[in-house]
C-alpha cells in the first residue's frame, strides 16, 4: 500500500501548492473561477490525505514490517486498538495525522461557513492549504511514513508500553483537534487582514471554531493528565515538562482570546490585541511542536532527534516574519472604536485577565526555554524545574481565579459602588466563611487557604448569577422559575455555558489544593508484613503484603503484587499493582518492565500503590504508597468543562434578528406609554 500512500502524498503536495497559489492569485486578480478552484482545494486535499492515511492504517493492520514505520511502532501481538493508535504514535505518522485532521477541519470550515462570508473563504482556503503544504512537505522529505526497509523483519519492534493505555488512544487525537482547530480562526484572521474586511464579521464566523478548538485542547490536556497519572506511576499528573508546557501555552493565549474577543464584539475595542492573540496562539502551536520534535530542550518524552525540527524552525521564522509584516501594514485599520469608560467595568477586568493569561504563557515559555536562553546569553545552561513554575504560576493562577469571580459581577461599561457592594456581599461572605471552616479543620498552608476562599467565592458568584438571572426573567417575562432558568441558559448560551466552564475551572483549582497534601511512603515488605500511612483526611490506612503472582496476559508477562488494605481498622479489600514485561511474538522481552499502579479513587482521596519490584528470588516487594487527595476532582472538572463547552456551542446562540425584533417591539410599545420619551422627541 505504500505506493498508493506515497502517490497520495505527492498529490497532496501538488494540491496544497495549488490551493495556496491559486487562492493568492485569484484574490489579486479577482477571477471568480480561480477563487472557486481555490475553495475546492481543501476538499481535494481531504480526499488524498485520507487515502494516504488509510494506506498507513492498512499497512499497520496487515503487519507489513517491510514498511519502516510499521516495523518501528507495532508488532504482531499488539492488540488492534493499539495498532490503530500506532498510526499517530510515532513521529512520521503523527505528522500525517496532523495533516489529516487539518484537512478535515478546513473542508468543514469551507462547508459549514454561512454564505455571507464568501468573500473570506478563498483566502481561508489559501491559508489552510499553505499550512497543509508545510505538513505534507515534512511528511515527504523529513519523516516519510511510507519509507521501506531493505529487508522484511519477521516482527516489529513493538509499541512503547506506556503508549499501550486507553488514555493514549484518545489523548493525542483530542490534542491534535485542539491544535489544528486553532488553524481555522487563524486562517480567518489572515483572510480578514488580506481583504481589509476588518469589521466584526470574521469574529462571528470563527466563534464556534475557537470554542471547539479550545474545548478539544482542554479535554486533550486533561486526558493527558489522566494518562500521566494512571500510567507513568510517579503519582502526579503534571510535571511542567516541555511537552506539557507546549500544550499549555496555546491554551492560555486561546483562553485570553475567548475573553477579549467579546470586548471587540461589544465595544469595537482591542482589535490589534485580538489579532495578535490569535496569531500568537497558532504560532505557539507550531512552536510547541517544534520544541518537542527538535530536541532543542531536553524533555523526558520528546521525539527522537531528526531533521523535522529544522523544517519547523524555518516554517516558524517565515510565519512570524510574514504575520508581523501583514499586521504592520494593516495597523491603521485596527484602531479602536470606543474608549474604556470606567476602570470598574467588565471590560477592565477582561483586560486584566488577558494580561495575566498572556503573562502566564510568557512565564511558561521563559521557563521552558531558559536553558537555551541562559546558554546563549550567559554561556551556562541553567535549568528551572517544577519549583520555578509553581512559584511563579500559583500566584498568577490565583489572581486569575479571583478575576473569574469578579468579572461576571461587574456590568459592562460602568459599575457604581452601591451595586458592587450588593453584588459582592454574599460571595465574599461565602469565600471568607469557607476559609474559616478550612482553617478550623486544620488547613494551615497559606496558598491552600487562599484557594479555598477564592474557589468558594467564585462558586458563589456563579450560583448568584444563575439565581439573579432566573429571578430577573421571572419578573420581566412572568415565567415560572423552571422555565425562566431554562430560557435564561437557552437564550444566552454563551454567557451561561461560560459560567459552567468557570465552575469547572473552580473544580480544577479544588483538585490542585490536594497536591499540597500529597503523602508518600516507600517500603519493602515480606509476605504478611504490614505498613501504614495516615491520610490528610485523618484515615489510617494499613497495608498487608499478601504475595506476588505471575502470569501471561495478552502481549505481556505480569508480576502482580497484592495487598490487603484496611482503612481505619476496617478491612477494605485487596489492591493489586502490576509490573509488566512486554514480549514480542517470539516471547522475547521488549522494552524495560513497566509498572501499572493500583489506584482506588474516591471523592476525597486516591490511594495509589506502585509495585516497584522484588529482590531476586524472594516474595518480598518494594512498594510506594501515595495518598493523593482530591485528584478525582480533576476528571470531574474536565467532564463539566466539556458540558459547558457544548452548551456554549449549541447552535444559534448569536444575537438573532428575532431577538432584536422582540426588543424593538418592546420599545415601540413602551415609547407610547412612557412619559420621559416625549421630551426626547
Amino acid at each position, binding site marked *: 500500500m505504500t505506493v498508493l500512500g506515497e502517490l497520495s502524498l505527492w498529490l497532496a503536495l501538488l494540491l496544497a501548492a495549488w490551493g495556496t497559489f491559486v487562492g493568492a492569485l485569484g484574490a489579486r486578480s479577482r477571477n471568480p473561477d480561480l477563487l472557486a478552484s481555490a475553495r475546492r482545494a481543501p476538499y481535494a486535499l481531504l480526499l488524498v490525505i485520507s487515502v494516504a492515511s488509510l494506506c498507513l492504517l492498512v499497512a499497520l493492520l496487515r503487519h507489513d514490517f517491510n514498511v519502516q514505520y510499521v516495523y518501528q511502532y507495532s508488532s504482531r501481538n499488539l492488540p488492534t486498538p493499539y495498532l490503530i493508535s500506532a498510526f499517530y504514535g510515532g513521529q512520521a505518522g503523527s505528522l500525517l495525522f496532523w495533516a489529516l485532521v487539518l484537512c478535515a477541519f478546513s473542508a468543514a470550515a469551507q462547508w459549514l461557513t454561512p454564505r455571507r462570508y*464568501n468573500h473570506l473563504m478563498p483566502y481561508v482556503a489559501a491559508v489552510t492549504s499553505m499550512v497543509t503544504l508545510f505538513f505534507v512537505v515534512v511528511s515527504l522529505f523529513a519523516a516519510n511514513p511510507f519509507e521501506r526497509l531493505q529487508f522484511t523483519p519477521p516482527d516489529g519492534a513493538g509499541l512503547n508500553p506506556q503508549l499501550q493505555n486507553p488514555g493514549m488512544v484518545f489523548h493525542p487525537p483530542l490534542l491534535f483537534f485542539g491544535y489544528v482547530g486553532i488553524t481555522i480562526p487563524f486562517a480567518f484572521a489572515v483572510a480578514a487582514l488580506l481583504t481589509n474586511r476588518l*469589521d466584526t464579521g470574521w469574529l462571528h464566523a470563527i466563534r464556534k471554531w475557537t470554542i471547539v478548538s479550545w474545548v478539544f485542547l482542554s479535554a486533550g490536556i486533561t486526558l493527558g493528565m489522566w494518562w500521566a497519572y494512571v500510567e507513568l506511576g510517579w503519582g502526579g499528573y503534571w510535571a511542567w515538562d516541555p511537552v506539557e508546557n507546549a500544550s499549555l501555552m496555546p491554551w492560555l493565549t486561546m483562553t485570553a482570546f475567548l475573553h477579549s474577543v467579546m470586548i471587540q464584539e461589544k465595544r469595537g475595542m482591542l482589535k490589534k490585541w485580538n489579532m495578535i492573540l490569535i496569531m500568537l496562539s497558532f504560532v505557539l502551536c507550531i512552536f510547541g511542536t517544534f520544541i518537542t520534535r527538535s530536541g532543542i530542550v531536553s524533555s523526558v518524552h520528546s521525539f527522537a532527534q531528526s531533521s523535522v525540527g529544522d523544517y519547523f524552525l524555518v516554517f516558524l521564522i517565515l510565519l512570524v516574519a510574514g504575520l508581523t509584516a501583514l499586521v504592520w501594514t494593516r495597523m491603521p485599520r485596527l484602531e479602536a472604536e470606543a474608549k474604556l469608560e470606567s476602570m470598574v467595568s467588565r471590560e477592565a477586568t477582561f483586560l486584566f485577565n488577558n494580561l495575566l493569561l498572556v503573562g502566564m504563557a510568557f512565564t511558561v515559555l521563559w521557563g521552558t526555554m531558559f536553558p537555551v536562553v541562559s546558554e546563549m546569553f550567559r554561556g551556562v545552561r541553567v535549568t528551572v524545574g517544577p519549583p520555578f513554575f509553581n512559584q511563579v504560576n500559583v500566584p498568577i493562577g490565583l489572581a486569575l481565579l479571583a478575576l473569574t469571580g469578579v468579572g461576571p459581577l461587574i456590568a459592562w461599561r460602568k459599575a457604581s459602588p*452601591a451595586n458592587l457592594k450588593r453584588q459582592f456581599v454574599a460571595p465574599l461572605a461565602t469565600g471568607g466563611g469557607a476559609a474559616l471552616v478550612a482553617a478550623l479543620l486544620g488547613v494551615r498552608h497559606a496558598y491552600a487557604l487562599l484557594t479555598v476562599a477564592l474557589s468558594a467565592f467564585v462558586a458563589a458568584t456563579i450560583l448568584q448569577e444563575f439565581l439573579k*438571572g432566573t429571578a430577573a426573567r421571572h419578573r420581566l417575562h412572568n415565567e415560572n422559575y423552571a422555565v425562566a432558568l431554562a430560557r435564561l441558559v437557552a437564550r444566552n448560551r454563551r454567557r451561561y455555558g461560560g459560567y459552567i466552564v468557570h465552575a469547572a475551572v473552580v473544580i480544577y483549582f479544588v483538585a490542585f489544593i490536594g497536591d499540597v497534601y500529597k503523602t508518600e511512603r516507600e517500603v519493602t515488605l515480606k509476605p504478611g508484613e504490614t505498613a501504614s500511612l495516615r491520610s490528610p483526611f485523618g484515615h489510617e490506612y494499613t497495608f498487608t503484603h499478601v504475595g506476588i503472582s505471575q502470569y501471561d496476559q495478552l502481549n505481556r508477562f505480569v508480576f502482580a503484587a497484592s495487598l490487603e488494605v484496611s482503612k481505619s481498622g476496617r478491612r477494605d479489600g485487596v489492591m493489586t499493582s502490576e509490573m509488566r514485561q512486554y514480549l514480542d511474538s517470539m516471547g522475547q522481552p521488549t522494552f524495560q518492565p513497566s509498572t501499572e499502579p493500583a489506584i482506588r479513587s474516591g471523592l476525597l482521596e486516591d490511594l495509589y500503590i506502585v509495585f516497584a519490584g522484588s529482590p531476586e528470588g524472594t516474595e518480598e516487594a518494594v512498594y510506594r504508597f501515595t495518598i493523593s487527595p482530591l485528584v478525582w476532582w480533576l476528571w470531574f472538572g474536565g467532564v463539566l468543562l466539556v458540558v459547558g463547552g457544548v452548551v456554549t456551542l449549541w447552535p444559534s446562540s448569536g444575537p438573532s434578528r428575532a431577538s432584536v425584533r422582540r426588543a424593538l417591539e418592546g420599545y415601540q410599545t413602551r415609547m407610547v406609554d412612557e412619559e420621559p420619551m416625549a421630551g426626547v422627541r
Partner: protein
Amino acid sequence: MTELLAGVVVALAALALVLEPLVMGRPRFKAAGGWSPDDGDIDFTDVEESESPKIQALLALKEIEFDRETGKLSDEDYSTMKATYQRAALLAMEQEETEGHGLAV
C-alpha cells in the same frame, strides 16, 4: 499494479474537483460554497445592519436592562445610560423613517 491504478483514480478525482471551475467556468461560487445554513443571526458582515445605530442601541438597551434587573447597574446609572441609548435608537429610527429605507428586521 492495482495500487497504481487506484492512485490514478484518486489523482483524477482530486484534479477534477479542483479544476472543474476553471474548465467548466459555470458553477462558480454556489457549487463550491456548500451548505450554508440561514441561521437568522444578524449579518455582521453587513455594516449597514450590524453597525446601524438602531441595532447597536437596541442591543445595548437590552443588556443594561438585564444588568439592572440582576443588580449590576444602579438605578441612577441605568437611567442615564437608558436615556442615552434610547435617544440614539429614536434618532436612528426617525432617520430611517424619513429616509424611507427601514431595515427589515
